[in-house]
């Protein structure tokens, strides 16, 4: 399993914690998570907090649009972690 797959699986787990009733296997990776999972702003904020805690990445509010889809989340976390490594 490469880094992207591992991150994707972790993100799916975090989404499952936010929306326990959702069928995570049916998530379309390039379609809005809000539209697919019927999550509201409180759910989304809790998801962002979970991403922050899980991956130790900072997520400014103006970056939220980049987290709109599953692929967007994966790409964001991968880039953020690479940035962390380059910064150390």
């Amino acid at each position: 399993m490469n880094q992207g797959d591992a991150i994707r699986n972790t993100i799916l787990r975090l989404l499952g914690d936010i929306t326990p009733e959702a069928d995570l296997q049916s998530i379309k990776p390039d379609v809005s998570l809000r539209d697919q999972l019927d999550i509201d702003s409180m759910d989304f904020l809790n998801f962002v907090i979970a991403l922050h805690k899980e991956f130790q990445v900072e997520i400014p509010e103006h970056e939220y649009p980049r987290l709109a889809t599953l692929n967007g989340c994966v790409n964001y976390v991968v880039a953020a972690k690479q940035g962390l490594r380059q910064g150390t």
Partner: protein
Amino acid sequence: MADFVMPILGADMDSGTLIEWKKKPGDRVAKGEIIAVVETDKAAIEIEVFTNGVVQQFLVQPGETVPVGKVMAVIREEGEQAQPAAPPPIKPALMTTPSQPPAPAPPAVEAGRLKVSPSAKQLALEIGVDLALVRGTGPDGAITREDVHRAASLTHPSPSPVAVGEATGTRGEDKGEGRVSADRQARMRQTIAAAMTRSKREIPHYYLGTTIDMGRAMAWLKEENSKRPVTDRLLYGVLLIKAVALALREVPELNAVWKGTEPVQSDAIHIGVAISLRQGGLMAPALHHVDAQSLTELMRNLQDLVKRTRAGTLRGSELSDPTITVTNLGEQGVETVFGVIYPPQVALVGFGKVVDRPWVEAGQVVARPVVTATLSADHRVTDGHRGGLFLAALDRLLREPSQL
């Protein structure tokens, strides 16, 4: 001695079923502590005790359904001497068989080992799921109803179409999880229907609306959140709730409940927040003393309230205490809300979506984010003039977000 009675937890609740006692006779209890879990048509609710003392005697056993107001337990208040316990009520079936040994006491609940919402515990009992095998996904790992459903789907074979047909038949002893969930949803729908029908039958509503320029509020929020770690960020809904609370200080007649034949104004501002449930339906539990909370406190308490509402771990006071309700349907794309007051409250405030609109300011047309705020109010208690003053105060407060 103080009586602990079945509380009223909703406008049309007339009875509740005791799921479990959280204490046992002889235990010390403090005001605000959870003493029991009661099943209502909407959810299983943790019930607080409203006195300090020692549990003298339980008069109701788990599984019994009792009317609102019935004494369920006797609490010996601080300073009182212990009294011999009165004999337990004798059930008719036992009266004919006096030599029958007493039924064993219900097993003591080992609180703290597993964090399980009362609603989830009840569901697990109903559909036969071993909670020890369920992974909790609720607050702090608490097991929620959804977790139980998920565990059931893994451990029980999927019903065939024929079995589904059987499960929806009249065999009450063979409830499937879907049936239980459907039953709960149907009962919740009936409860909402009863409350809303009563509201429209008894409360002469009037409606007012105003469009509020949210430019300053949204800019302030963006700036504020840029300085906060993600864990402390605010949602704009918190500004709305706080502004409602402060506006109520100026028009306190709206912060009241109708009792008997007259309104009773509340000194405390407990705002019921409409929260949609994932399985359908909604609840509007209270955020207490909203006007006295900072935005940071309010945000944390709102997060906690939403989590617990959806996990089925609300407390009785959160259902019985609201003095007004706020509903925000902006996320569904709604621009204007015409709300139905939740009795016995006398007002409801609705908010729609924040949208960019042309706005005239100092003779210039500019684009502004605006929100439509509406007031549904009880004409027996206030009139349009007072309602208008409330909306004007709300408008003013949201234009000065740093003062919230």
